[in-house]
Each structure stands twice: as structure tokens, then as C-alpha cells.
């Protein structure tokens, strides 16, 4: 899961894990702005509408590990579905974003989830994000509707504003934590990785010689 190999782009090759994340959601819900706010701490209203797929890199320090994030930004237009869904399989985490001022983008969330379920790996993590919550006057989707939907889907939910830098960092860090936890879980449950430490007491040793019972 965690790739130890870096790509050529980053000057910083010094990291413990590399996670690939994907930002998806309807067109113009603010995916590119959100990513720019996180990676470059900039905001402008005039990002060119993404064509195909783009990415940014950020290295953070989480749970005592240097985690390099390769965050892929996708075009939201219907026409780009086939191109972007091809990238789902390689991603460990998804930020599914809608625009709180646009009901259609909220109604499409279920659709996006279906896309993820079809194309992504079984152990991926998803976070639901309601963006543009600074535009309170134009709000069409209530926070509790977002919360309810997230609960139904069994995923976590945040309202954010890329413009006012609200919750942006938090969302990414939360997603990284969820992925880390999942990874640790799967390590723990794998008996091969759990080395048999300590003294060889009790039942461990019992089975060996007992096989040659009776004649001893």
C-alpha cells in the first residue's frame, strides 16, 4: 500500500510513506482552489477549469511519520469521468467534495460514491467535504444534511472554505490519519508481521513434541 518510492518531482525524497489522494466532485465545487489553498496557501477565484487531471505534492508529519502526499486534482465535468476514474485504483484516499451553495453537486454525491466503489480498491478511505461555507447567504445545502448523508455513507464529514482557509488543513490531516489507522490495523491482523516475541511458554511449545505421542 504505502509506496516507498518517490517520484522525480519532489526535491524532498525523505519520507516514510507516500499516499496518493484524489479530490473528486462535480465541476466548479472548488476542488482546485481547495488544493491550492492546502499546498500553496493561495486563493484566487480564477483558476482555469481543470482539464483531465493535475496534481500537487505536500509532505507532512503525522503520527511520528513523514508522509508525502501526492494529491491528484480531477476535472469534474461528466465528459472526463472515464479519464479520471481510471486513476481511482491507485488512490488510497478520496476527498469527495460538493458545494454548499449548489444543491445539484450535493445530490451527485451518491453517484460519486458509486463511482469510487466501482473503480477504487476495497480498502480506500473517503471523506465528504462541503466546500464554500463562507457563502452563507447563498447556501442551499444545510450542514445537517451533509452530516446525515455522511453518517449514512459511514464516512466523516467536514464543511470547509478554501477562500477563508477554514478546515482545509484539518480535512487532509484527518484523511491521512484514517489511512494510517487502516494501515496499522491491517499490519496488526497479519500474523506474519506479528513476530512471536518473548519467551516460549505454555501452549506454544505443547503442540510440537505432543505429535509424537504414545511411543515416547
Amino acid at each position: 500500500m504505502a509506496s516507498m518510492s518517490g517520484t522525480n518531482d519532489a526535491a524532498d525524497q525523505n519520507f516514510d510513506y507516500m499516499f496518493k489522494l484524489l479530490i473528486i466532485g462535480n465541476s466548479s465545487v472548488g476542488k482546485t482552489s481547495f488544493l491550492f489553498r492546502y499546498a500553496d496557501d493561495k486563493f484566487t477565484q480564477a483558476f482555469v477549469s481543470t482539464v483531465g487531471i493535475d496534481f500537487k505534492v505536500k509532505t507532512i508529519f503525522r503520527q511520528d511519520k513523514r508522509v508525502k502526499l501526492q494529491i491528484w486534482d480531477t476535472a469534474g465535468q461528466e465528459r472526463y469521468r472515464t479519464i479520471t476514474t481510471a486513476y481511482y485504483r491507485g488512490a488510497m484516499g478520496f476527498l469527495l467534495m460538493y458545494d454548499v451553495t449548489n444543491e445539484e453537486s450535493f445530490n451527485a454525491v451518491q453517484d460519486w460514491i458509486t463511482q469510487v466503489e466501482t473503480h477504487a480498491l476495497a480498502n480506500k478511505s473517503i471523506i465528504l467535504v462541503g466546500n464554500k461555507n463562507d457563502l452563507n447567504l447563498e447556501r442551499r445545502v444545510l450542514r445537517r444534511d451533509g452530516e446525515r448523508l455522511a453518517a449514512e455513507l459511514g464516512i466523516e464529514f467536514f464543511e470547509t472554505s478554501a477562500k477563508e482557509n477554514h478546515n482545509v488543513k484539518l480535512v487532509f490531516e484527518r484523511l491521512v490519519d484514517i489511512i494510517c489507522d487502516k494501515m496499522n490495523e491491517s499490519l496488526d491482523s497479519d500474523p506474519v508481521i506479528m513476530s512471536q516475541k518473548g519467551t516460549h511458554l505454555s501452549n506454544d511449545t505443547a503442540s510440537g513434541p505432543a505429535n509424537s505421542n504414545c511411543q515416547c
Partner: protein
Amino acid sequence: MVLSYYHFPKENPELRNEKVKERYKEEELCELWEDLLDDSLDFPSREHFISKWFGLRKFVILSPQTHACAIDTEGRAKILLSSISFALSQLNCPLPVLVQLDKARRRLFSGVAYPLSAVKTEFETVHLRRIPVRYQCAEGVIDLLKEGLASKCECYLSVRFTYSFSDWPQIMCDPLPEEDESDDGDDDDELSWRTIPWGACEEVISELHLAVQWPSLSQDLFVDTPSYSDLDPFNAPSWTARLRYEDDPQCLLATHLSQFQKLLSDSVRSILSATENSPDSNVTSVLDKLTEHSVPSIGTVVTKAATRLQVHAVNSPLTERMLKKLLAYIFPDVANSSEDTSEFQEENDFERRLKSAPPGGLLWRLAIALLNVNNSYGGSMAVNHLWHEIVLELRYRWDEGKVLPVEKEKEPDSATCLLQQKLQMLNCCIEHRLRRQHVVEEYNSPGEEEDDDEFFECAEESNDQQREANMIKAEGRLRKLAYQLHKVPGEYLYVPITQEPAPLTDDALEEQARVLASLGTDQTSLRARMQSACLLSDMQAFKAANPGCVLEDFVRWYSPRDLTESGCLSTRMQVEGNLWQETWNEAKPLPVRRQKRLFDDTKEAEKVLHWAASLNPSSLAREIAAVLLNICLVTACTNLSKNSLIDKLTTKIANLSRNTDWQITQFEEICRLFLSAEIYSARKKSIRTKLKHVQKDVSDDDIEKFANDLLDNQEVKINGAAKSHLGELIVRIFSAGSDDEERDDKVTTKLPPPIAKEYVARCEASKPSPNSKVVPHRIYALITGEECRIASVCSQDTAFF
């Protein structure tokens, strides 16, 4: 030297031996006494042998680490034991410490403990080939125990006799699968290479053991001397049965898989060495052999594709006839036979977890054929030959425009393995080209009426005379939208026919992502430009379908949210010189028919064919391993009911199939699991057959349960011992081998002589003098035809002697 501490906790720690507690004062009772007097520790089925010999639950063993430092002289043993003795008494440590003496395999132990103050306990073992007849019975064992005791006492004895049955008559054995040993490879037994082999090649159950037991008999209640014994096994209160198995039985699938594993770790070397061994080879022909299939020259390809089934490779272990059969099996549409692939049609839940290929599909058949060809028809040379033919067949399909019998009209599915994706890709190419040629043909055939396909709406080339002042005839319309054009009121907006983006296999996608990522994070606009081919194509098609349109119209269809309510472009679309505007300005009105192809089917097909041709047997085996293991898993499931082994296999195979860099060791581990599954299923089958043969009064359900108990447990207690149905069943098995078999209706009340007799005798007496404390003593004796072993625990009072 290694010091190991063992502790086997009681199942019910609360349940202390009440009798023992009554007899000893609190300060004279210790854990050791409780254990020594606990008859539930007589003949345990799974504890450590030290536990069984000395009746201990807690002990420490000091054993030499290597052969060289074995304690092989009496002098060294004495020094060691007295040092331990000193240490334990100084520390007031009640734990018994046992030292392993002599060679490890003799399992001789001597030990000491200080369970109470002023009490010393000694542990001794004796191991002999033979002991005098008088000690080979209960009486003799009791005499040994009482030696040196100062007071008279009553002895209690537990006895266990073990009987073995191993001469299974033919009729009680499963017919064994025959190994297909076709020497000329020309085998008519087609089933042998069309199925996944399963099962053991030999009998897997060696012996049935019956142990009869008498717990804690008072010595006065019975007689067991060399000349007479009234210990009749049929009256014993406890019977237990257990199975003994053959070590490392040969199993079919496991053998095939290990051969396949050799193929995996095989490299070019093996082909080289194989050819080198043939007498008339020289270096150039060796290299020819290697290069021939990987880079086919046009000449060979053309001729071979034409005679693709007649080709006969020199030195190939596969005969022409066999090869034809194999190809007809893998490509059933060639032979035009209604091939029955229903074999694997069952749905199972593996599909979602494994990155494999559709059940029963081409790759399944190929995997099965490769497994068997590799195992029985000539190893990697034969695999190489078969694959060579398959690549020729693929090329022939492409050249002739015949789709492959893999899932049709499906783009490479990233939920399947790479090989499957490549085949799907080839099919996409074939179909794409067919469609393309079809379109061109129709378009070029004159006089034909325009059919309802809107694609051909503009049959004639745009003609200057037909043009109105600023109106061009629209081309390539798909459907009408309910919007009117921005600048041309009254004209509706049409969705154009568009080109689909090229399908991608996993490796191509990875490469694409790598290229995009390698540009670095700042090259956003360059990346967008690189991906703008599709946008340009769509814009061109849109312009062709909607003469007089502007970017606003395009955005209305393509990205409606970038159009404000008043019909203006959004801010981001208005940014000066953005890619959308640029591309829009660049785009000429062109219907897809006249556009540059986004999907170059010829190039992609050649790529697939080249990739396939460059696979050597080892890399081919690697590409198909996940599919093969998937099929094996399905086979295992049909032979074994769902159990933990299957779950483990599924996880391991899923991991392998999802990891492109999987290691041979992963494959090896899976093979071992398959072997365990195969052995387990063979044992189950075997014991069922044996039990069914002597079934009689026992119901099928009971047989099933008994068989499962025997397989899953070390020992199975027979409730009701000899008098029960199961008890009778066991006796019938024992008499099945003898000549009395005819008298089947009369249950023979006879068992063969026991192969082992075990005794545990215990008593409580004072030692060394009558005034000493009364303490427990215990002795264990095992007498078999080959050896005698005696283990004694003797305590003595060190204060009053």
C-alpha cells in the same frame, strides 16, 4: 545450554483436588504434590512429554544447545545436578529443574526439586531396549515404585494399552488417481489436461490407534502379572481413537504447482541449456531459438500466421496433434465446437477480491492448459511452444479482424490481471478497426441511401455553392438539446458525435501518470495542454455540429456550471488566454470522421502483440499465476467445505494478485497452503471411505461427525467405550484385516496385542525412614516392542532420616 520454562495451566484452576487437601496440612501441601497426585495428568493427549512422564505442570528444562556440548558423562551430570540442587535449596525455589543428558534423541532427563523445606525430590529416567519380563506388567512397575520406601502403602495405578491397525485392506482405500504419464505427449485422455488435478497420489492415513484406559485402580482390585492379566480391553472404562498419518504424502495439485513454480523461477538460461544439450546445436541456433519468437520478422509472421495450425517447431516436445487439441481448447471458436465452459460458471465472491480473469474464460483455459503442459508434456520448452502458437493466433486474429473469445466489447478492466487487460485491449483494437473500416466502406459506396445513422448526415463534401452566406451545413450531430444557440436565435444546440478517449491498460495508465507527475507540481498548464487532445476533438466536433456556435454554447453542453444564469461565461472561463479559450480558437469545425484518431488501434494492437511475443515461459507464468491460483482456489473450495484454510488462501492469493512485484516466496507459501488443503481433503475422503465400509449400525451423520472429530482432534473419546456403536465400529475395523472377515455378522471380540503398554503408579509413603514425612511418589512406565522407558519421581525427607 538453553533454559526453558514450561507452564501448562490447569483448565480449571479452581478445581483443586479436595482429597489431596484433606490429607495434607496447609504447610505441607505444595503445587508439586497436587500435580503428582492428579490423575487427570495420566496419559494426556497433547501436553509436553515431560508433563506426561513426570506428571508436572510447571518445570524448567536445561538442555544443551548443540550436539557437541551434550552432557555425556556421569561425572558431568553429577556436577551439574548437584550445582542445581545447591542453587535451588539456597533460593528456596520450589520449581523442578530437569537436565537433558546424553544425546538429544535418547530423551534422557534427570532432575531435582525442593518443593517444601527439608524435602528433596528427584527425577530420573531410564531408557532401555528391553527390560526383564517381570517388570513388563503392572506388578513389576509397582515393585519398582516401592523400592526404597520406608512405609507400607497402597498403590494406585492408571493403565493404558494402545492398539494399532495399519493393514488397510484394498477395499477400504480410495482408488488413487493415476498420474498421467504420457511419454509421447500424445494423450487421448483429454480430461487429464483440461482439469485442475486434485488429491493425494497415495494413501494418507497410516494407522488407526485405539487406546483403552483404566484410571486410578487400586492395586488390590486387579491382577496383571507376566503370566496372567485380568485387564480386558473390552471392559476398560475409557476408549479413545486417533489417526496417524503418512508423512509428506505426494499430492497432485501441489506437485503440479511446484513444477509451475520452477517455471516461474526459470529464466532464459533453462532454454539455453536445453538446446545446448542437443548434439547438433551451435551458438547461433541457440540465439535464433531465443529471438525467433520474441521479434518475429514479417516473413515468418506472414507465413506462420497463414499456416498457423500446421506449423511444427523443431525439437518441440509437443506433438502437432496435441498442439491442435490445446489450441482448440483454448480458442473454442476455432474448432467451432460448442465447448462446454460451464464447469466454472459458478459465481463466487473471489472475483471482487482477486485481480484475475473472468471464470471459465480464455485465460482460465490457458492457465489450466499451461499448468498441465508444463507438468506432463515437456516443461518450459512445451510452454514456450504453446505460447508461441498462441501469439501467432493473436496476430492472425488481429490481421483477419476476428475478435477473441474474451469478454467482448469491454474495455480493459483494471479489476482483472494485466494479461486479461491486454487481451481485452487487443479486442478493443480489432473491434475499433472493424467499425472504422465499416464506416469507410459505407461512406465510399456511392448511390447508397443515407441510412438513419446521423453520422452520415453530410454525405457530400461541403460544396461552396451549397453554402449560404454564413451557414455551413451541420455535420456529426448526435442529439438535440433544449437550448438555442447564443448568437443564432432559432437554431438549436446539438450534442455532437464524439470520439471516445483511448482505453488504457494498467501499465499504460501507470506510465501516463508517471509522465504527468514527472513534470513537477508547477507545470499545471503544461499538463493540461498535454491532456487537451480530447477537449480539442470535442470542440471540433461541436463546431461541426453547430455552425455559428460560440464558446458559450460549448460550455452550455460541456460544463454547464461555467455559464451564469444570464448566459455569460464564468469568471474562470473568461480569464485571458486560458486553455479553454485557446483550444476553442484553435478548433476547426471537423466531425469526428475527419479528425485525427484519439485511439490508434493499429499502434495499440502492435504494442499488445509485441508485448505478448516478448514473454518467455517464466514471465508468462508470472502474468498468469494469479489466474491459475484463482482456479486452484475454486477447485479447493469444491473439495473442501469453507474453512480457515480457504480464507487464508483467499487472502494470500488476493495479495499476490494485487501486487505487481510479488515474490516467489509468496507463491511458495500459497503452494504450501494448497498442499495442506489437499492433504486435509484426502484424509477426510480416506477416513470416510474406511468408516463407511464398516458402517452397519451407525448413521451417516454419526459417521460424518466421527470422521470430522478424528481429523480435527488429536484424540477422540468414544463414549460408552466397547459397548457403544462407535466402539463396535472400531473393533470391526480391527477385524477387517484379519481372516475372520467372513464372520462379519459376529463382531469379533478380539484385538491384536497392544503395541504399547503404559502404566502410571503412585503412592504416598515416607522415605528414607519410617519417621520421615509421608510424601507422594510417582512412576511412569512405557513398554513397547522396541523400547522401555521409565520415569520416576521420588521424594525424601532431608530432616528426619
